[in-house]
């Protein structure tokens, strides 16, 4: 039987994570073991702070901000 819990989704690259709605984005990131420092959150095309509460059924896009690896003065 399907759970009746209300959920929201976080999308990071090609992965989608389902979390309970009503929690903050920051709490959801901690729950998913994603460092809040390493991503930005975009809701409906707008950059939002991670204290925003996740709404039922919505999909919040996460943009990874860590780059590098190669020795890169051209970055």
């Amino acid at each position, binding site marked *: 039987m399907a759970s009746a819990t209300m959920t929201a989704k976080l999308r990071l690259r090609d992965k989608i994570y389902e979390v309970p709605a009503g929690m903050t984005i920051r709490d959801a990131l901690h729950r998913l073991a994603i460092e809040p420092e390493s991503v930005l959150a975009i809701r409906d095309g707008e950059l939002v702070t991670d204290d925003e509460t996740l709404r039922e059924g919505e999909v919040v896009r996460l943009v990874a901000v860590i*780059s*590098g*690896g190669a020795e890169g003065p*051209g970055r």
Partner: protein
Amino acid sequence: MKCRRCGERAAINMRHHKLALCREHFLAWLPEQTERFIHKYGMFGHDDRILVAVSGGKDSLALWDVLHRLGYRADGLYIGLGIDGGLGYSAESQKKAEAFAADRGLHLETVDVAAAEGASIPEAARLTHRGRSKPCSVCGLSKRHIMNRVARDGGYDVLATGHNLDDEAATLFGNTLTWSVGYLARQGPVLPASAGGLARKVKPFCRFYERETAAYALLRGIDYIYDECPFAEGATSIYYKETLNRLESARPGAKLAFYLAFLEAKRMGAFPNGSSGPAEDLHSCPTCGQPTSAPGQCAFCRTWDKVRARLILPEEIAVR
């Protein structure tokens, strides 16, 4: 969360500054701060010609955008490395850099490594002992050489790169773990030009967190390449960044404090004169004329001569 300046909904919260800003005020704040750092560290002036090394990524395109907005005379340099990685990485990043320049009427210099030197970076790495499993070493060596050559030949006063605070803190962390005093002595917002022909290098974004440069690029609508270099996976520098971000999460401001305390220690003489190694005692490469730390050919010319020699030999002999 509300914008500290206007009370509208904030787009970004910078916990280390205890500062949340809306889109409009963040897009004003970042260039203001950049200008402040340019002056504070004496990077360049409005009469100087600046060459910005652009990769198509968020940091370098954001830097070019900011310098352009601030009225500096900044051209771009894109180096085509020939990296595909199944996603056409170099081709895609070049498109982004070219589109950015074309949209703003800016001049972009392009150097294609394969056309100029005879092989792409991954081919060169495969043909030499210099990072056969990963091309990062030959890539870094080649980029440094080409950037310096273009800056020198083009008569630019300064070469600007998009290094952000996370880049700087990760480098500092790595060099501190090994107490690489020579590298520590050379790290900073400005690397002066040398008499032997090394261009002056500056990092105007060195005090911005990576989240801030990414947020700026997104909010400005800059179309940058999201994909990371396919060879970056598992890189030590990324591991250091992740480690520092865990620290930052628990202690907001830890990364910035680490870097600023280092700069202050340096200013106070923690790294005595001479600890920066051979940079003061440079020789001229007989092949290309660029400065090198030891007599004879520079590492770039040695590496690429080897690559070209091996390109004409059967591979089983070449890689022996």
